[in-house]
């Protein structure tokens, strides 16, 4: 395994810019997740590392070796495809053997490593099966074994869980993460699923419109999102547009005066996390306390979402825990919504 450096990589297809100036440093043994909606450039970034997309500018270094100009077959990257891309005419063992054959690994050694990796992914009894005789989860593990057996310098996972059903996805998530930790694999994973990203990553890279918006740990992204996009993509946020009229004072477009943490004046957007908002809080415990009307209730089991209108132009989502015996407000009911100034995240500039 090795350190991966992506340095100022851009990729243009004619007039269209797929990724712009992407820079990323993945430490040895680290799992970094590229997170973003479809079309954000995360898959292109992965394909640049794998060698299937040639960067228009910038460079890719793997273990101190500049691989920017190398074809895919000389890069020693282990790639797991979204649809697994197993060779349909080869058995599980033959699929896994492919990378070793290409590296002319001697037969006895190859057999030992194939056995080892199949044991690791618990597929030994199925070694003689063809891919079409396997379930989705098993195929996924074959793809993983095939990408690991030749000891790649970096493991690349392209939406590896998106073709599995929800229940299985949770297990495989943990499995992949444990395997990655045990083998100390330098790993880059691409996903659009924030829950998947949050549970698996050492660090996350949020991408949007071909650019890296923010790089950081789960806490960094959730507590200190750099912009409105990150605040809406990682976790949920209600946004209130307005203006900072004095230090610590924010006036919303709908005329609400709100206490915020210090920020430079001018137009701004206030982002509020649903679980940081409180219904009917003790007035002394919050900096903002506003009357509102419940407009929509969404019962989710462990929690209940209340959509509360605070003014003609502002509506926030409040997530309340569904405790035993607690009375959940009904639609049309008047409630008070409060929060600490610290819990409001302020972005300078007008809304989108």
């Amino acid at each position, binding site marked *: 395994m090795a350190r991966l450096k992506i340095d100022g990589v851009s990729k243009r297809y004619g007039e269209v810019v797929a990724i712009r100036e992407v820079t990323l440093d993945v430490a040895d043994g680290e799992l970094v997740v590229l997170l973003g909606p479809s079309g954000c450039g995360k898959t292109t970034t992965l394909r640049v590392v*794998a*060698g*299937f997309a040639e960067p228009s500018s910038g460079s890719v270094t793997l273990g101190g070796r500049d691989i920017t100009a190398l*074809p*895919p*077959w*000389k*890069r*020693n*990257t*282990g*790639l797991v*495809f979204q*649809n697994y*891309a*197993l*060779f*349909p*005419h080869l058995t599980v063992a033959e699929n896994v053997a*492919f*990378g070793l054959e*290409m*590296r002319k690994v001697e037969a006895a050694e190859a057999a030992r490593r194939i056995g080892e990796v199949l044991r690791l992914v618990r597929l030994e009894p199925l070694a003689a099966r063809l891919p079409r005789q396997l379930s989705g989860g098993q195929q996924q593990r074959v793809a993983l074994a*095939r*990408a690991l057996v*030749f000891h790649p310098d970096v493991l690349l996972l392209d939406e590896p869980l998106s073709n599995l059903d929800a229940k299985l996805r949770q297990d495989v998530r943990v499995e992949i993460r444990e395997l990655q930790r045990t083998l100390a694999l330098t790993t880059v994973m691409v996903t659009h699923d924030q829950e998947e990203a949050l549970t698996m990553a050492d660090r996350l890279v949020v991408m949007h419109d071909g650019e890296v918006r923010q790089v950081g740990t789960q806490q960094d992204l959730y507590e200190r999102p750099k912009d409105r996009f990150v605040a809406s993509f990682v976790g949920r946020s209600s946004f209130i547009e307005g203006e900072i009229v004095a230090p610590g004072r924010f006036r919303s477009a709908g005329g609400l005066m709100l206490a915020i943490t210090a920020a430079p004046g001018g137009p701004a957007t206030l982002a509020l996390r649903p679980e940081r908002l409180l219904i009917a809080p003790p007035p002394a415990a919050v900096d903002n306390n506003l009357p509102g009307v419940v407009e929509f209730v969404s019962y989710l089991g462990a929690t209940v979402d209340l959509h509360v209108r605070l003014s003609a132009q502002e509506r926030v989502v409040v997530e309340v825990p569904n405790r035993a015996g607690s009375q959940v407000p009904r639609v049309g009911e008047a409630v008070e919504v409060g929060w600490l100034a610290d819990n409001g995240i302020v972005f300078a500039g007008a809304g989108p």
Partner: protein
Amino acid sequence: MAGIGSGRRAGRLALKAAAGVALAYILTPLVFVTWLAFFRQEIPSFPPEGYSLRWFEAIWGNDRFVSGFLLSLELAVIATSIGLLLGLPAALCLARFGFRGHELMSSLLLLPLVVPGIVLGIALYVFHVEAEIATGLPLVGSLGGLIGGHVLIVIPWTVRLVSASLAGLDRSIEEAAQSLGADRLTTFRRVTLPAIRPGVVAAALFGFVTSFGNLEMSLFLVGPGRTTLPIAIIQYLEWKIDPTIAAVSVVQIALIAAAMLVTDHYVKLSRIL
């Protein structure tokens, strides 16, 4: 609900009946030719006076049929091989690369399929004559010229069938092979070719059948002492009408049916056609 169920059943029955009629329409001539081949009398007439295998024996006694059969076989094998060697890379280029004239190229490669055989034959004949005059090379009625013509009618089949299976190929398995360390040639040999094998086999089969049965174009390309089986049959018919022809046809039908069955054993033809 019962009304919908019975309506659906009636629909399915009608569909089966239509398929049955079409099948009978296709099979009737084959059944009659096969039946005729076993008649004892020389002039085909109904009802048969008795049955015998004498017409099949007559084939082996007829030099023109035997040599025609051998030539047609040789021609079909060579033309199909060359057709595949040319059609496979052509299909790959069409599937993989966008370039100027892509559509035109694709249509041109299928053209020999739609040009009537007679037209094709005349065109090639005139071309051979002109080329022979210009270069002095013996082209008219040569084996090379005949093979060239047959390659022409095999190519549309190879291009079309290989293209069809390439279109259904999951490109990511090729990328998987490359990321595992296989260069382009190895990827083609180890992954692409096995994946499109059914299409290649079907292309070979259809190319073979097309070449083996071709009459119209070959009429203009054969030379003295060089006669394909379909031409030998036509020539025989000019002098005689006896069940030998039916027997020859039966042998041809059996040969092609056998080729299809063998092919089907390796790749399911129903999955390609």
